[in-house]
């Protein structure tokens, strides 16, 4: 898109927002996701700052390239908005989901979503299905299980199965003192994923995780998660804020591509069983 057209689009957005006078008029952006320049990024998905920012409806497809595949379509589209302050970019993803699936269990799965950007933006993007060997993509993943944990759900069996009764945990017996380091160390021995430092095994301090991947099956956590997020379920839909650093060589006035994915917990979607978009153009508004 030429610069003159970009400028006139953002002018139209500003006019629409003013015309809406706080009635949250939404400006559709059918061709691409447009990230507005904002010196201060929204802190929540319910932030008023999202009102008036252009909305792109990202159509979702079934992940049907690698087994196991999703064989029945579920979530059809995600409404995507974006804003940047020049160093970070915030996305708001909204999609319809009647049920809030944020309670883990042996057969309960999480509602979740993710945003994917190429690690090295360029004209020739890597494969949209999680990149390819030597051409990684970066993913920011949010899970409703983690959100509930961050929002205060205790790390106990009774928090997820209220009627559960446990006779005995060996680390809660004498002579170990309650909340002592020895007690924590022994409890850790019965939580192998935590003991080995699996970054997703909790208890969570944030509901998102940064990941890199070079093709299906190669997903790995980034050394440090620098993204933030927050999800709220309201009126039978999720609104999730994902905020991450801008990729290298991408800044205001520039652009790259992005993709989104959504998992529905009530349909036991996880991992490869997901709805995902193809690459969608992402353009960043220039600094005023």
């Amino acid at each position, binding site marked *: 898109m030429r610069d003159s057209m970009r400028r006139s689009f953002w002018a139209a957005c500003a006019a629409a927002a003013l015309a809406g006078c706080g009635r949250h008029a939404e400006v559709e952006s059918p061709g691409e996701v447009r990230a507005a320049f904002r010196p201060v990024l929204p802190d929540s998905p319910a932030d008023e700052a999202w009102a008036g920012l252009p909305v792109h409806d990202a159509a979702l497809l079934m992940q*049907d390239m*690698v*087994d*196991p*595949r*999703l*064989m029945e379509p579920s979530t059809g589209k995600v409404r995507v908005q974006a804003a940047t302050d020049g160093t970070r970019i915030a996305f708001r993803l909204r999609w319809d989901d009647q049920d809030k699936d944020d309670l*883990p*269990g*042996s*057969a*309960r*799965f999480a509602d979740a979503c993710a945003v994917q950007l190429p690690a090295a933006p360029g004209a020739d993007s890597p494969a949209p299905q999680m990149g390819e060997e030597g051409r990684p993509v970066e993913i920011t993943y949010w899970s409703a*299980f983690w959100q509930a944990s961050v929002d205060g759900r205790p*790390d*106990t*069996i009774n928090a*997820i199965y209220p009627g*559960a009764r*446990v006779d*005995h*945990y*060996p680390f809660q017996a004498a002579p170990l003192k309650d909340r002592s380091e020895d007690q924590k160390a022994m*409890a850790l*021995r*019965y*939580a*192998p*994923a*935590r*003991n*080995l*430092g*699996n970054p*997703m*095994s*909790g208890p969570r301090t944030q509901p998102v995780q940064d990941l890199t991947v070079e093709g*299906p*099956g190669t*997903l790995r956590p980034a050394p440090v998660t620098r993204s933030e997020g927050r999800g709220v379920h309201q009126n039978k839909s999720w609104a999730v804020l994902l905020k991450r650093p801008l990729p290298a060589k991408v800044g205001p006035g520039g652009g790259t591509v992005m993709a989104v994915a959504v998992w529905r917990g009530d349909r*036991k979607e*996880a*991992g*490869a*069983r997901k709805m995902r978009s193809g690459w969608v153009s992402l353009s960043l508004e220039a600094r005023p």
Partner: protein
Amino acid sequence: MARVYNWQIGRETSYWYPGSRPKKQFAAVFDINKCIACQTCTLACKTTWTSGKGQEYMLWNNVESKPFGYYPLGWDVRLLDKLGAQRWEGGRYAGSTVFEAAPAGERVLGWGPEDQDYAYPNVGEDDCAGGVTKGAATRIPHDMMWFFYLARICNHCTYPACLASCPRGSIYKRPEDGIVLVDQTRCRGYRECVRACPYKKVFYNALTGTSEKCIACYPKFEKGLSQQCFLNCIGKIRVAGFLSTPKEAREDNPVDYMVHVRKIALPLFPQFGLEPNVYYIPPIHVPEPFLVQMFGPGAPAAVAAYRALPKDKDLSALLTLMGSTERVLSRFRRAGGSVEGYDESGTEVIRVPVTEPAHVRAAIDVAQGVVRSNIT
């Protein structure tokens, strides 16, 4: 999918990865006829490995009554129903394995248990099949009512469905001993393995968000020691070892002898196609069709061999050796009235009499002036 050879079904079958047998394969034999369902094995495992938060419902080892006991609920019958007709032509399986029957978009034919399916670990306990009619109650023994106890752990399969199903490759089979493990640093809790394992021996930890399973007590096994559930078995029904392929079977290797040479120990649901490595000496009092469905076409011959044990010196000697030592036995030898067990280095680690000596005391203790209630 690749093609691999599965000797338990007498033919090649499909598998997600090319065949690659480990250098050695951990295997076990369980003698069902000796199990009393005391659940000591279950508790030995539970206290050793799964006493943590999020592991409350996990039973890496469990003992269920068959035909009506299951953990999780209906684990076997649900898959048997999905798999359709399972026909054998002699020793060759003519039906589909869970890999061959995988629907479009799936790597394995499987199903995912619901939360409540794990809520009844004792369902069906001691429930009998059949009824006693036509005056059968006046005859002992009668063969109209039956049940038996099935002790189960992970089968550390040669072609694990859990491993095949994981899109992340988070499950691996150790080349040194064939033990199948979930990499706890890599698992992301998708539960494809829970869905795929026909024996339902992978469990999701809802507090850590990862799936966990029996590790065959590998820290012990690496030192030549048997697993906790083997060591603590009151009935001494279990023996651990390394199983060879049929062509390389050794007559003096305890598990080779029972599985390959005498064919008295059989795999659990071989028709699923995973080549499971826990072998069962089938119960001798159970109707043949049930045994054939559960243990394959070798069941009638195994039952006949077991019934002939009193005249079978080598086999009865070996069965005496089961559960007699914590050491893993690589070799056994019957010598006169005793049987000896040797570890991998060739050192004799156990020697037991094949027939325990009986001492009979007089019925009346003259010195104490009392009648003895126990004289042997």
